[in-house]
């Protein structure tokens, strides 16, 4: 029951407030581990699935593996498995990963329901029925929650019986070794997908900075992140003299604006967006219902006439999709200001103009860069059994994202139409470039530190010891390390990148290949996550 409630909360957090980013497997799995009484297991399963899913984010609502449910289900079932924690973790990953992929099939089911619901919202809007609109918005959360909570409930049910222990006791040790290796290779998938999202051909050399810092200078990850910030600032400041695009301002328009909204109105708008921006996401309009629901208190205040109020609701029920953490609050604040200024056409035009750029930049900043850095660092600590991992990630999303959203809304509201001028002047491009540079430097350090693979193979070499001919075994890994340290992790990541970006294999297939290869090679004993202790 507690697990089911946790699954419900994880789903809501990922659509609404993003308080602790509970939909991410690092958080979902770690707390699930606490709930079932196996905290270390939850850390290991959650962290591994987290690293496998780094580059997997939805574009335009595409269905992706349900890693949140996979982490919870994997942890719950593995807790009932035979063996020690590391064996359980391997089983947890072996269960959680296919579960995440298979359960993705339920995602469209939930979205089809929300899509049907949004058409009823049109009827309520045409009647000026705000209560009906709000009901549709919040009821839309139910199908989202159902497709994730029900599998979790069923898994918890299965785990409570003794069946899981009996089944897992018969799993051969070779498979467990193989799954452990597969788990340590999966981060290569996440990193390769990230590289595919970024402009590798333009910035590839920045990867070398992070790699050298880690592999040769032994700089810890946090240090590499700081180096990345410094390099990013250099890039941005050295290009500051580029010409700016001028957007004509309208000073006369400003002077005619008089405040018609109260601070309470503004707080209500922001609060609605903060707590529920995407809970009614649907194929037709995507985020539009959440946006209209957030705007409703302002429209109510500004348009006493029903016809104007209805037109306002319909205006904001138009298709809308952008990044809800960086971008969405900006557009919301701008829309409020422009509606208050009596320029509803500008409000609609600004939304359309901004949602594309803000989606591109917001998604890059949030998913490809900030989240990936924060969750990779959190996951690397979690893999060592350190609770600092999920705690760090949760705090690093809770505080900055709450502050950044509030700031964006207030800034955009104060700026009104001038907001677009700021953005057109190149602020967006500079922020995006700086963030991309930071991402590349840090990624260069992440790949060798987190993708763990060494070969246990040896070859025979004839030599002489004190004049006597002797054949001795030489570890191939030692030779590779002399050549370039961490060469295998780099090669694995490069191979996976070629599979995804060049061969254009879908992420699910790539994950499957990596898991199968890992299980086979690990089972055979030719490769392992780390070198065996030397006697």
């Amino acid at each position: 029951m507690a697990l089911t409630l946790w699954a419900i909360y994880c789903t809501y957090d990922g659509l609404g407030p993003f308080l602790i980013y509970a939909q991410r497997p690092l958080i979902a799995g770690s707390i699930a581990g606490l709930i079932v009484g196996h905290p270390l297991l939850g850390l290991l399963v959650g962290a591994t699935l987290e690293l496998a899913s780094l580059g997997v984010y939805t574009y335009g609502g595409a269905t992706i593996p349900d890693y949140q449910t996979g982490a919870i289900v994997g942890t719950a079932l593995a807790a009932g498995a035979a063996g020690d924690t590391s064996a359980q973790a391997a089983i947890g990953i072996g269960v959680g990963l296919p579960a995440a992929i298979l359960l993705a099939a339920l995602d469209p089911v939930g979205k089809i329901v929300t899509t049907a619901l949004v058409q009823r919202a049109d009827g309520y809007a045409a009647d000026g029925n705000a209560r009906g609109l709000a009901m549709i918005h919040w009821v839309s959360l139910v199908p989202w929650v159902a497709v994730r909570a029900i599998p979790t409930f069923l898994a918890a049910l299965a785990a409570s019986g003794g069946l899981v222990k009996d089944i897992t006791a018969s799993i051969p040790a070779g498979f467990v070794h193989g799954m452990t290796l597969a788990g340590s290779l999966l981060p290569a998938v996440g990193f390769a997908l990230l590289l595919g999202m970024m402009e590798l051909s333009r910035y590839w050399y920045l990867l070398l900075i992070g790699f050298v810092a880690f592999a040769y200078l032994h700089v810890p990850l946090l240090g590499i992140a700081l180096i990345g910030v410094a390099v990013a600032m250099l890039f941005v400041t050295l290009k500051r003299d580029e010409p700016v695009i001028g957007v004509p301002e309208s000073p006369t328009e400003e002077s005619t604006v008089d405040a018609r909204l109260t601070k309470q109105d503004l707080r209500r708008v922001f609060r609605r967006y903060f707590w529920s921006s995407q809970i009614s996401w649907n194929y037709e309009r995507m985020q539009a219902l959440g946006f209209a629901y957030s705007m409703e208190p302002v429209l109510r205040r500004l348009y006493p006439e029903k016809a104007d109020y209805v037109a306002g609701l319909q205006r904001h029920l138009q298709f809308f999709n952008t990044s809800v953490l960086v971008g969405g609050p900006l557009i919301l604040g701008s829309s409020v200001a422009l509606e208050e200024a009596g320029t509803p056409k500008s409000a609609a035009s600004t939304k359309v103009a901004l949602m594309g750029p803000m989606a591109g930049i917001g998604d890059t900043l949030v998913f490809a860069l900030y989240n990936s850095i924060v969750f990779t660092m959190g996951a690397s600590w979690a893999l060592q059994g350190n609770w600092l991992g999920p705690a760090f990630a949760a705090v690093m999303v809770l505080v900055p994202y709450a502050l950044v959203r509030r700031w964006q809304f207030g800034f955009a509201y104060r700026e009104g139409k001038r907001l677009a001028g700021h953005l057109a002047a190149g602020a967006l491009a500079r922020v995006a470039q700086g963030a991309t540079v930071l991402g590349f430097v840090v990624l260069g350090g992440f790949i060798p530190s987190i993708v763990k693979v060494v070969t246990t193979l040896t070859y025979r070499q004839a030599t002489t010891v004190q004049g006597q001919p002797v054949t001795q075994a030489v570890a191939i890994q030692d030779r590779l390390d002399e050549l370039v340290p961490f060469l295998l992790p780099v090669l694995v990541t490069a191979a996976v990148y070629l599979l995804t970006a060049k061969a254009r294999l879908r992420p699910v297939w790539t994950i499957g290949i990596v898991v199968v290869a890992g299980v086979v090679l690990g089972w055979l004993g030719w490769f392992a996550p780390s070198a065996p202790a030397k006697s």
Partner: protein
Amino acid sequence: MAGAHVRIDNRLIHGQVTVAWTRRLGVRRLLVCNDDVAADDLQRALLPQAARGLPTEVLTVADTLTAETGPDLMIVAKDPEDAFRLVEGGLHPGIVNVGNVAPRPGTTYTMVTRSIAVTADEADAYRKLAATGVPLVTQLMPHDKPADFLPLLDRKGL
């Protein structure tokens, strides 16, 4: 005129276009084609910033017809009427792909696919476009299977 890739997408420039399609097709330039958008200072200034570094122009239909085309160009038309005017004006795309057409509240529309809403007027425009002989397909993402568009209209009785 030389060919160019043409996509109908009233979301204009967004991740599906800039990340997925431009790579698949080898696109190096984007062109947003719509008279209203070209007249909107905000959109003309901001849309290029959504293109993640690709050179991007925002032009009217008439200006698009005089612009330089080529296999490295993707033209994003906002609606089927614009695409028809381009073809009527001499553009010869090898294919026209209908990507996203989000519904507008207050209009009467039918969802033909998950991401494509069609009104009666738009259905006429699509048929007019197809009558020119240009293949009309819908393929949301490169890894999706392309589908002929007119049969989808027929199936919905449009």
